[in-house]
């Protein structure tokens, strides 16, 4: 037998306590026999990620830091759902609520904090909660599932994260904040105002300078529950749920009852020792040099010091922390660090770009950075923070300091170059206090090759995750070609790491209404995207917000800007619409006249039964359109990612085999679908009998008329890979054909990726999925069709007429100047 191990009891299964244990295991794995008491029923989880759980961006499983297997593997006894009730310092024992008494040699108190509940009447009513643990999140999710109204008291970090999460879950949210601007402890008034505007744009009501007087309850038969919040100025805000997020109070009850020295928190020295040398404390429950802490970075710094001491070290000492904060509200970039209150001897450097929603303020004193507030563009936060922590002299770069680290003569440095330029001492992971040198050394020395390994070995990016990108960049820079990031999805383009589906989902989920919203929210790496992502985003926004989103002209390919097809010599071709392939003498005469008048060199009948006029000079386009419009013709959209043609055969009107009026149905389909914007071009066809003269079974949607009705075929094309359609359904009436067609196109519009035709889309999602949505779910089909018609109500305007008669986009067709001769 070896010597008896020392017994370490940890009270508190949260981030500070378990981080101490982790650090201790790394230093002295066999020294202690460890028992952990946790009041919550869960294993150790990442409390700062509760906001993303509330917002639905992460699941609880994803924020577990150490599962039960980890405790077992390390020989730790974990007692969850078992709060400790008493400490007997003389006997060196703790006793839990369930009556269990265990002896210790060393005791660690990591009891954290409690949300501060302001003592107004009604504060204890059911439906009034804090935002502190998973149980609170569950209460909020339950309330949100019923919809209704939420009032969040407190416009600080936690309050705003709660408000955002509840709003995303569909509640009508009002934030009540006592101070004149939001997050006044982290942000100056300018940034606070920008933040308020952003939240209001997301539909959250923000009341500043608002003091809560009373929480009102109601209900019948003793089921009294919160119904409203009354402010001191008399306003009454109806509420089904009230979240108090006005601050936290160190949880000192246990320490105080045991007779430890307490102020606002349990008092500790630089070695994290309480007034009883056998008892230590870390985290939010402590008061160190008169200060209490509520952010994660200081807790981890304390944990490191204490682990060192528990492992037998005598040097490690905690001397307080310099902290920075970020708001975990997706799409709102807020960063602040240090002291920005200004005051004597300080100077401000301020950068403001209202159009981009970017605000930066740096506070300097004696040529050293004292504080930083960044809103809208927080990329340089870590760099400013490292300058601030190091107390670096910035006089040499003062002129360009506000533009950030990448600034070097106007060219924006790549993120890789920016990270490469950081000194080894620069802090990469603010939560865990991990600097660049530690990460690169671990990658080199331990042969790490993945993000997970770096997280496991260094803790970098293992908490809030906002530095994940930088850690990946370091991996790539250190390993060179050896590092292959595992992109689960292919990014849309080089401007982003997100795939098409994720971007589409974010546009809808976060209510992103403009392209710059998308760039900001999803952290695009370029200021205004590229020729690949911009047309895609323009389409996604147009599809998501019909009638609301304003089409971005400069994000259209030239064919869609000029409403004609650019050809190899820079001339254009023009296709007037012929409904269902029908034309008339007057239309043909107008076409012939246009051909002669503008000396159009080539006239060709297309595969879609329309007439294509080739070789039109760009400056002639408006005049050509005007003449065609005069004969009653409109654009055939042959240039569009939209409905091109509806090809038909003659059907029952003339054909001896025809079973239905295929031409007439083709005209109806074309009248319903023209002008739509789709992920790629769309072609329809109607054949009057199974001889299929209109080749309907290689179209995006083809109708084959039969005696008993109509067969609907989808997902075909005659492109590079010819694909015959799949049979979707058979229907009896023309009305059903129209409804299915609208619903199919809308499903394609909402789900396919930009530039993905229906054939690859059908193959990717599977015909079963499309059948389920369109055939198996009649209500869903009608809703899709209704959404299609709603969107069409904004898009069926002839673009030629707008330009020919009303001079829309005139600049497109005329030179700026002619200096010839």
């Amino acid at each position, binding site marked *: 037998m070896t010597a008896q191990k020392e017994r370490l009891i940890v009270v508190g299964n949260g981030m500070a306590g378990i981080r101490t244990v982790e650090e201790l295991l790394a230093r002295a794995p066999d020294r202690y026999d460890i028992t952990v008491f946790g009041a919550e029923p869960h294993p150790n989880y990442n409390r700062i990620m509760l906001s993303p759980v509330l917002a639905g961006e992460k699941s609880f499983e994803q924020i577990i830091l150490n599962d039960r297997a980890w405790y077992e593997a390390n020989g730790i006894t974990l007692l969850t759902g078992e709060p400790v009730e008493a400490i007997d310092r003389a006997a060196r024992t703790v006793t839990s609520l369930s009556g269990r008494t265990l002896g210790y040699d060393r005791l660690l108190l990591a009891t954290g904090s409690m949300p501060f509940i302001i003592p107004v009447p009604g504060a204890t009513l059911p439906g009034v909660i804090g935002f502190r643990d998973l149980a609170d999140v569950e209460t909020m999710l339950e309330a949100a599932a019923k919809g209704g109204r939420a009032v969040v008291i407190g416009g600080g970090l936690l309050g705003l994260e709660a408000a955002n999460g509840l709003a995303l879950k569909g509640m009508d949210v009002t934030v009540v904040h006592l101070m004149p601007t939001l997050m006044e402890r982290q942000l100056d008034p300018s940034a606070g105002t920008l933040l308020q505007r952003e939240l209001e744009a997301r539909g959250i009501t923000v009341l500043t300078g608002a003091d809560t007087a009373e929480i009102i309850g109601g209900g019948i038969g003793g089921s009294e529950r919160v119904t409203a919040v009354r402010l001191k100025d008399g306003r009454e805000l109806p509420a089904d749920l009230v979240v108090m997020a006005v601050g936290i109070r160190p949880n000192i009850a246990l320490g105080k009852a045991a007779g430890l020295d307490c102020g606002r928190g349990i008092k500790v020295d630089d070695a994290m020792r309480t007034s009883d040398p056998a008892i230590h404390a870390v985290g939010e429950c402590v008061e160190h040099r008169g200060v209490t802490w509520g952010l994660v970075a200081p807790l981890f710094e304390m944990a490191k010091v204490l682990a060192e001491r528990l492992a037998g070290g005598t040097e490690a000492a905690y001397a307080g922390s310099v902290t920075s904060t970020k708001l975990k509200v997706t799409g709102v970039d807020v960063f602040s660090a240090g002291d920005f209150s200004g005051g004597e001897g300080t100077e401000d450097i301020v950068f403001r770009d209202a159009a981009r929603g970017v605000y930066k303020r740096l506070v300097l004193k004696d040529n050293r950075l004292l504080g930083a507030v960044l809103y809208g563009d927080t990329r340089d936060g870590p760099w400013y923070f490292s300058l601030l922590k190091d107390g670096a002299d910035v006089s040499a770069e003062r002129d360009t300091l506000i533009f950030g680290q990448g600034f070097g003569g106007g060219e924006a440095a790549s993120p890789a170059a920016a990270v490469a330029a950081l000194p080894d001492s620069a802090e990469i992971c603010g939560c865990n206090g991990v600097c660049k040198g530690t990460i690169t050394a671990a990658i080199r020395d331990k042969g790490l090759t993945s993000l997970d390994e770096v997280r496991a070995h260094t803790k970098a990016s293992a908490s809030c995750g906002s530095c994940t990108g930088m850690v990946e960049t370091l991996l790539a820079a250190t390993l060179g070609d050896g590092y292959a990031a595992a992109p689960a999805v292919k990014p849309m383009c080089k401007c982003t790491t997100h795939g098409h589906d994720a971007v589409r989902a974010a546009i809808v989920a976060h209510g992103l209404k403009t392209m710059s919203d998308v760039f900001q929210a999803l952290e695009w790496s*370029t*200021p*205004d*995207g*590229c*020729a690949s992502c*911009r*047309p895609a985003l323009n389409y996604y926004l147009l599809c998501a917000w019909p009638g609301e989103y304003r089409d971005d*002209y*400069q*994000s*259209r*390919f*030239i064919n869609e*800007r*000029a409403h004609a097809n*650019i050809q*190899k010599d*820079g001339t254009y071709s023009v296709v007037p619409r012929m409904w269902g392939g029908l034309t008339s003498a007057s239309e043909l005469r107008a076409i012939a006249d246009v051909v002669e008048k503008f000396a159009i060199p080539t006239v060709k009948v297309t595969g879609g039964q329309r007439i294509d006029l080739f070789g039109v000079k760009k400056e002639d386009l408006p005049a050509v359109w005007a003449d065609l419009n005069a004969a009653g013709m409109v654009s055939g959209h042959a240039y569009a990612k939209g409905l091109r043609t509806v090809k038909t055969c003659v059907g029952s009107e003339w054909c001896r085999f025809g079973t239905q009026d295929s031409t007439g149905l083709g005209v109806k389909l074309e009248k319903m679908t023209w002008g739509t914007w789709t992920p790629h071009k769309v072609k329809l066809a109607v054949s009057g009998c199974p001889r299929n003269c209109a080749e309907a079974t290689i179209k995006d949607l083809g109708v084959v008329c039969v005696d008993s009705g109509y067969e609907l075929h989808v997902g075909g094309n005659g492109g590079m890979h010819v694909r015959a359609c799949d049979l979707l359904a058979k229907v009896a009436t023309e009305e059903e054909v129209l409804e299915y067609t609208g619903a199919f196109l809308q499903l394609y519009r909402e789900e396919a990726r930009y530039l993905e035709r229906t054939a690859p889309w059908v193959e990717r999602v599977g015909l079963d999925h499309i059948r389920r949505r369109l055939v198996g779910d009649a209500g869903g089909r009608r809703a899709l069709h209704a959404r299609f018609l709603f969107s069409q109500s904004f898009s069926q305007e002839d673009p030629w007429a707008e330009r020919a008669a009303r001079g829309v986009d005139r*600049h497109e067709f005329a*030179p*700026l*100047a*002619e*200096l*010839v*001769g």
Partner: protein
Amino acid sequence: MDQMIAWTEVGSVADIPRQGSRVVKTAFGDVALFRTATDEVFALEDRCPHKGGPLSQGIVHGRRVTCPLHNWVIELATGEAVAPDEGCAGHVPVRIEGGVISLALAARTPGRGGCHG
């Protein structure tokens, strides 16, 4: 040095849409004037070094334009094609005074064709 260059006024910055372009017809061919999202203005010969595509018809992003014919990306400041493509669209010096754009047509550097040209 400036006196040596002949500047020709061609229009105002406001005549070019942001992230768009306009064409100036000149004795040696069309010149494409581009205006970026941040209101910088650049001028290139309106011919992609690849197959002569009209760069003025491309999508402008950052300080680059993507040719409408085959998606070559061209640097607006220099006319150089972005690697791996090689070639240069001729570049014309631009001056802006009080929102009025002038070109130094005599000082233009003619373009070189790309790897296919």
